[in-house]
Every structure is written in structure tokens, then in C-alpha cells.
């Protein structure tokens, strides 16, 4: 296997960007929540819901872009539910998040079964098609890999810039960052801490759901159970890897996806002597290593995991 060939291969880079897309959405979403001081472990379930709802919307005759919106709205609803428990009630964010994941996942599966009873092989839809960007997509290799992608992929890259700008350059972004550092500093300036946190969790959850939707209405054309398969947890690790910065989150997601793409190619070329399960383990093992490497430098938002309770001594 010639690695140089692989790195010059358009397919490899195109696959990397494609695989990075759901991770970018998920990581950005988680990053927004954590910047506001809320660890959102609902991510795995919210991505599942996004995947199911968007697919179902298209399957029932809906339009693809509306499906993205519907997924986002469902994500935000679960984000709001998460906020009721973690923000307003100040309950353990760890357990709340796991609860949201279990609830979102089970409700998605239940709904899927109710809406499509007796289906054995998952039916298919027509997903987003590649949308080559004029001129840019004609640049050899780079352009062909990066600018012949699903519109949702472009959206993901654009959102990195938007989130970065909003967080660092606008009043609401300042409020989000501040509420993750010291909620009291926000409260004394007359801003409602609960609303800022809830807003951030809802928006972040919306992002996560779109990340899930990407899988069913862009890369694949069907909804399978267990299809998120730990991607949400990987996003949680990526946020730490990215030191809570949107730009680094993008870098982390792409690196991770590249690693995944390499892994798949190596797996295809050497299936004979290394069992494929070990390749499938790589993303999870890699995430754990990323956490270990970054652990020394991790500068958590100071109020992450710390509930804020108004009017209490």
C-alpha cells in the first residue's frame, strides 16, 4: 500500500471531508453547549433523532432542506428538555445527558417502528446530491475533493466561521462565554443566566441533530438503528481536543475523519491479516488517546458542570 498514492487520491480527501461533516456539526454543537457551561451528553441520542426525523420527513414526501430544519427543531426540543433538567433544575449534567440520550434514542426507534410497522429492510430515499461549486471544484485534487460535496458539508464549514464570529465578536457570544466562566458575572449585569444557557443548549442541540440528519439524507439514504454508533461521544472528546475553540474543532474533526479514511483504506488493503474489528475500534481508541494527550492542557470553561441557582445563599 503506497501512502503517497493515497494522499494524492481525490477519493480519499473527498471521503475525509464527507466523514468529517457530521463530526463538525456535532462538535460545534457540543462546543456551544459547553462554552455556556453545560455538558450535553444528550448528543448521541439527539443525533439519532436528527437522523430519524430528517429521513422520515423526506420519506413522507418532504423536501430535503425542510428536513434539515425539522431535524434542527427536534434537536432544539431535546435541548430544551435537557435545559429544564440541567439548567433550570440544576441536576447532574452527566446523568441528565445520559437520560436525554436514552430518551431521544428510544423515542426515535419507537416512532420509526410506529410509522413504518413491519418493515424489515430499511426503505430508501433520494438524498442530497453533490453540488460542485463552479470553478472552485475544477481545481485539481484539492478543488475536486473539497468543492464537490453535499450542500450540508458546505453548510458545516460555513457554520464554523459563523459560530466563531458570533462567540468572539458579538454581544450574545460574549454572554455565552461569560456564562460558561462565571454565571454570577452575567447575572449581575442584568442578563438572565438561565435563558443564555438554555439558548446555547438549544442551538447546540440543533447543530447535533443536523449532524445526525447528514447521515440519513446525505451520505446514506436510509435510517438504520444504531447508525450513530458512538459518533456523539467522539464529538464530546473532540471538543476537549479542540480546547473549546471552533477553528480547532474543525481541524480536529477533519483530522479524525482523515484518520478514519486511512483506516478504512488500510483495512481494505490488508483485510487478510488484521481483523476488521480492530480497524473499527480505532476511532474510539484514537479518541481516548486524544483525551489523554490533551488532558494536561485542557482549560475547561470554569463553570462547566456547575449549576447556577438563582436567589440562593
Amino acid at each position, binding site marked *: 500500500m503506497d501512502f503517497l498514492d493515497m494522499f494524492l487520491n481525490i477519493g480519499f480527501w473527498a471521503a475525509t471531508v464527507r466523514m468529517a461533516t457530521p463530526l463538525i456539526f456535532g462538535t460545534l454543537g457540543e462546543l456551544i453547549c459547553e462554552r455556556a457551561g453545560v455538558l450535553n451528553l444528550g448528543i448521541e441520542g439527539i443525533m439519532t433523532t436528527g437522523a430519524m426525523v430528517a429521513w422520515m420527513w423526506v420519506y413522507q414526501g418532504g423536501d430535503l432542506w425542510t428536513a434539515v430544519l425539522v431535524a434542527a427543531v427536534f434537536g432544539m426540543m431535546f435541548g430544551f428538555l435537557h435545559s429544564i433538567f440541567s439548567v433550570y433544575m440544576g441536576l447532574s449534567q452527566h446523568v441528565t445527558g445520559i437520560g436525554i440520550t436514552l430518551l431521544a434514542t*428510544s423515542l426515535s426507534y419507537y416512532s420509526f417502528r410506529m410509522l413504518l410497522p413491519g418493515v424489515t429492510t430499511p426503505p430508501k430515499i433520494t438524498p442530497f446530491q453533490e453540488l460542485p461549486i463552479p470553478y472552485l471544484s475544477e481545481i485539481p485534487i484539492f478543488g475536486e475533493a473539497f468543492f464537490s460535496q453535499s450542500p450540508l458539508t458546505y453548510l458545516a464549514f460555513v457554520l464554523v466561521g459563523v459560530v466563531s464570529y458570533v462567540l468572539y465578536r458579538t454581544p450574545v457570544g460574549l454572554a455565552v462565554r461569560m456564562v460558561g466562566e462565571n454565571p454570577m458575572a452575567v447575572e449581575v449585569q442584568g442578563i438572565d443566566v438561565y435563558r443564555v444557557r438554555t439558548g446555547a443548549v438549544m442551538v447546540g442541540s440543533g447543530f447535533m441533530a443536523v449532524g445526525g440528519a447528514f447521515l440519513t439524507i446525505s451520505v446514506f439514504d436510509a435510517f438504520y438503528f444504531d447508525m450513530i454508533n458512538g459518533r456523539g461521544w467522539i464529538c464530546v472528546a473532540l471538543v476537549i481536543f479542540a480546547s473549546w475553540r471552533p477553528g480547532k474543532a474543525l481541524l480536529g474533526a477533519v483530522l479524525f475523519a482523515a484518520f478514519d479514511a486511512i483506516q478504512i483504506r488500510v483495512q481494505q488493503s490488508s483485510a487478510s491479516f488484521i481483523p476488521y474489528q480492530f480497524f473499527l475500534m480505532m476511532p474510539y481508541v484514537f479518541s481516548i488517546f486524544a483525551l489523554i494527550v490533551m488532558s494536561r492542557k485542557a482549560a475547561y470553561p470554569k463553570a462547566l458542570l456547575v449549576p447556577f441557582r438563582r436567589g440562593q445563599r
Partner: protein
Amino acid sequence: MLLEPRTHTPLWMTIIAPIAAVFVVMVLCSGLIMWAGAPVLQSYIALAKGAFGSKFAISETLVRATPLMLTGLAAAVAFRAKLWNIGGEGQLYMGALAATYFGTGMVNLPAPLMIPFLFVVGAIAGGLLLLVPALLKTKLKVDEVVTTLLLNFVILLMANYLLFGPWKDPMAMGWPQGAPIVDAGILPKLIEKTRLHGGLIFALLASVSVWLVMSKTKWGLEIRAVGLNQDAASFAGIPINKTIIRTALISGGLAACAGVTEVAGTKEYLTLDISPGFGYTGIAVAMLAGLNPLGVIIAAIFFAGIYNGADSMSRAMDVSNYIADVITAASLLMVMLAVMLTRMRIRFS
């Protein structure tokens, strides 16, 4: 909206809270049943009958409750020390793998020794698995939630590899399953013509033992102190890291024992579906029990009943059995809310 702490919580509130929470969940889930077009009351009756309606149903519920008690205890012990072990599923499989490795012919002991031996090696394997995140937490401050979650996937893939590869039973007609556990390692049946096995006795004993350890021993005092106020515990001279590591070994070991009961009791060989998420449901069990090891027994039986009942309800009423997962998840959240309301009151201004 403001939350104000209550000065004291009456006993009846503590007892009522989880029951009320579950009741609210049932009411909310009746919406899902109506969506399926089934009559709510009859559906719930079908569920109750499927869970506890006959001797057979009860025995099946207890079979299912056995691993849930163990994963529930695992979560309860760990959460007491604020060690967020979400890796019960992986530890369960780790225990099952260990039982399969040692229990399919490698070691041959008479039954009175073989069965304890399988639990011991299983518990050690599960404890060691949780030791990794626990060491990362104590030495490098790596968040254990993410590491335990990620390890679940790694262990499942490992089991997948072994069962499709070197451990595949050639006698199983191509199915990915392990060789059968040797006769001496099989947990004895408790009642003829049911699947109820000695794992239940083990789980009950484990619950009582964990309760004793947590409330009557200095280990328990240390675990609770570390969980409630790590700064004060550390100042008083309680070894924090040692306590967390010890908790991890206990918790991982308990979850792994659930794998042993499934492999050596329920199935008698290892498959890839020995656990339909027992590790995750264990979290709901622990929370419903208020992290009380004796409460875990009741909570585990309750959730086992929900799952088995939902299976028969889905056959009778055409309501997807995923409703059991919904009830479990919703109960987890609602119980947290209810318990908080016993300690706080909400005031709207």
C-alpha cells in the same frame, strides 16, 4: 422561577418521590400508546400481566432483573463516589468474555468451586477494565464519562472479533457464539421448567453485601465522603485517589458479574446479544433506587417487568416494544426531578 432548599424532607416524601415519578411517566407514555391506536388501560394491563401475571412471567422477569441488579449496583456504588461510570455495558461484556475464556474447558473445577471462580475472574476482568478510566481520571484528570462510553464500543468490537474469529464455536452452525460453559460452571436452576437460575441469589447477596459495605464499613464511609465533599474528605485525610480506584474496582466488578450471570446462567454460552443494554438500564435502576443498594433490587425487578411486559404488550396490542426503553429513559429523568423536589421547592415569582 426560584428553587429554595427545604429545611427538612419528610420520610413520606422520600418514599413517594420515585413512585410518583414512575406514575407520571406512565401517564405521559400513554400518549405513545394512543398513537399506536391501542387502548391505554388494556395495554398497561397487558404489560403488567406480561411482567407479573403468571408464575412463568414472574420467573422471566426475575431472570431479566438479575443482570439489572448487578449493573444497577455498579452504577449506584460508582455514582455514590461521583465516579461517573457509564461503562457498565462494556464491563458486562468483559465479565462475559472472562467467564467464556476460563469457563469453556480451560479450567476444570467441581461446581462448588467453578461457579465462584467464574464470578471472581469475571469481576477481576471488569474491575480492571474500569481501572483504566479511573486511573486516567485520578492521574491525568481525564473525564471518565467519555472514556467509559468509548470503551463500551471497544469491548463490544473485541467480543465481535472473538466470536466471529478464534472463539467461534464450530458446533454452532455458523452462528457467532462461544463454546458452551462447562457443566460445572453452569448456575443451577432455581425452579424446574423455568429459566430462573442461581444468578438471582448471587445478585441478591451482592445487593445486601454492597448495602452493608456502604453503610456499615469504613470503605463505605470513605466512598460516600469522597462523593459528597471531596475537599473535606481530602482535608480529613481520606485518601481520595485510593478510594476512587477501589470504587472503580468494585463497580466494574459488579457490572462484570452481570456478564457472568448471563453467560453461565441465562444463555450458557456467549453471544453478541447477551445484553440488550443492561449496562445503560443499570443507570436508570440506580437512580430509581436513589443509589440505595437495597432499593436496587426493587428498581431492577420493576424495570425488568417493564421490558418483559412490553414484549408481551407488543404482541397483544401492536405497540412497539421500544416503549420499554422510552419508559426507562423517562423514568430516569423523572426520578431525578422528583428526588430534587423532595429537597427543594419551586417558587414562581
